[in-house]
């Protein structure tokens, strides 16, 4: 009996190691998608419970807090409307100028809105689950954004949900450009220890580049996954050269990745 127990355990461990190390990424991802499909109702239920809890908590806010929030939102709306008008003017001017110089008009971006319904239960990786999948036109390797900036990219997609690898995960690599100086680099997430904010680094910047702290970093459009010009974040300090070959610096993501609730998937 004792032997059977240990033989079964050894067999299961060998199977799991084979599944982990020997099965290629494609079939492993397919298996995961099947498991995700089975598991997604639990995620949806959890998200619904959380939404109910947040709603109830919001209802219980005092009248004073609500009035103050209302005033702030009105101010923000007025500012946004002004910004919107200005953006519209600039867009019109841009279109006219493009027509004048004969530029090909870029395809309008098609977006799909989605709610975050779950997060990676592990403390080591940074992914979120969204409630949009292939039924809404979402495919793997599509950029995910918020109005504040880049969130990440979709990695596995089921009929009604998708897993998004966040830009702060070490497995996510984004071709990027410093907005002001136009220097190219690669943004990648970094593992964080206890208490440190999730973040990323921009690496492989030309060592002769003159870049200041707090410079904005945007996607370069190279690589084919992330469209050009999406804001990723800003540099925490001026890039320094550790190896003598390239410069690198830590980046603070523009989107608040710890608190995102709604995102947009770029479909085209």
């Amino acid at each position: 009996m004792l032997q059977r127990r240990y033989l079964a355990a050894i067999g299961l461990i060998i199977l799991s190691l084979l599944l982990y190390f020997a099965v290629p990424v494609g079939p492993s991802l397919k298996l995961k998608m099947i498991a995700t499909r089975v598991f997604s109702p639990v995620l949806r239920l959890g998200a619904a419970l959380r939404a109910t809890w947040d709603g109830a908590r919001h209802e219980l806010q005092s009248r004073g807090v609500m009035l103050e929030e209302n005033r702030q939102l009105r101010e923000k709306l007025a500012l946004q409307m002004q910004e919107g008008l200005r953006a519209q003017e600039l867009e019109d001017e841009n279109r006219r100028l493009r027509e004048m110089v004969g530029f090909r008009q870029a395809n309008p971006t098609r977006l799909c809105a989605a709610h975050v319904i779950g997060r990676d239960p592990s403390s080591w990786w940074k992914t979120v689950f969204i409630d949009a999948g292939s039924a809404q036109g979402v495919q793997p390797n599509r950029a995910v954004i918020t109005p504040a900036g880049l969130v990440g990219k979709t990695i596995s997609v089921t009929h009604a949900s998708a897993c998004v690898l966040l830009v702060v995960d070490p497995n996510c690599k984004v071709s990027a450009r410093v907005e002001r100086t136009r220097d190219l680099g690669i943004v990648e997430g970094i593992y964080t220890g206890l208490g440190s904010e999730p973040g990323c680094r921009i690496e492989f910047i030309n060592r002769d580049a003159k870049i200041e702290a707090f410079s904005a970093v945007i996607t370069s459009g190279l690589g084919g996954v992330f469209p050009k010009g999406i804001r990723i974040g800003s540099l925490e300090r001026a890039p320094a050269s550790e190896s003598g070959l390239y410069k690198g610096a830590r980046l603070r993501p523009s989107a608040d990745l710890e608190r995102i609730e709604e995102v947009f998937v770029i479909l085209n």
Partner: protein
Amino acid sequence: MTIWFLIAAAAVAMGIQCSLGPVFNIGGAKLDLMPAIVLYAALTGSWRQTMGAAVVAAFLLDTPSFARLGLSVPPLIIVGLVVNHFQKLLYRDHLIVQCGFAAAFSLAASIWTWLTLQLSDAPLPMSLGVLLKIVVIAALASVVAPLVFRVLDLLRRWRRYGPVNVETF
């Protein structure tokens, strides 16, 4: 106790972990309920139930994560079997047993994850921050274990409720 009871408990625990991740999070160390559930199976059920619970819990843990499937299976099975082997020598209702072994499960899972990450494209360098994170994950798992035991015991008692025959001397 049936294996379905443990699977349902693991699925609900995973739903809670995924949905309330930001709530049960101390400086990036997230609460992990799976060690407590596998420990419950190891201290209460047979070796088959322990292995079943360990495999299901590991797959549930890997599915919504970036980790490839199968990563969490070995540590949960090994520690689960060791605990199950000494089941009769351990007093399952003792707080120290529950907290201590839940921490052992969590430590084994974290150290195994760290070791496998060293073989990946993005290795995780060991630092004081990472070490503290592993310790805090284990501490969180050990703190929550007695609560998980109480809830699962309560559910089992509720499921088995029936009229009691009282025999008098």
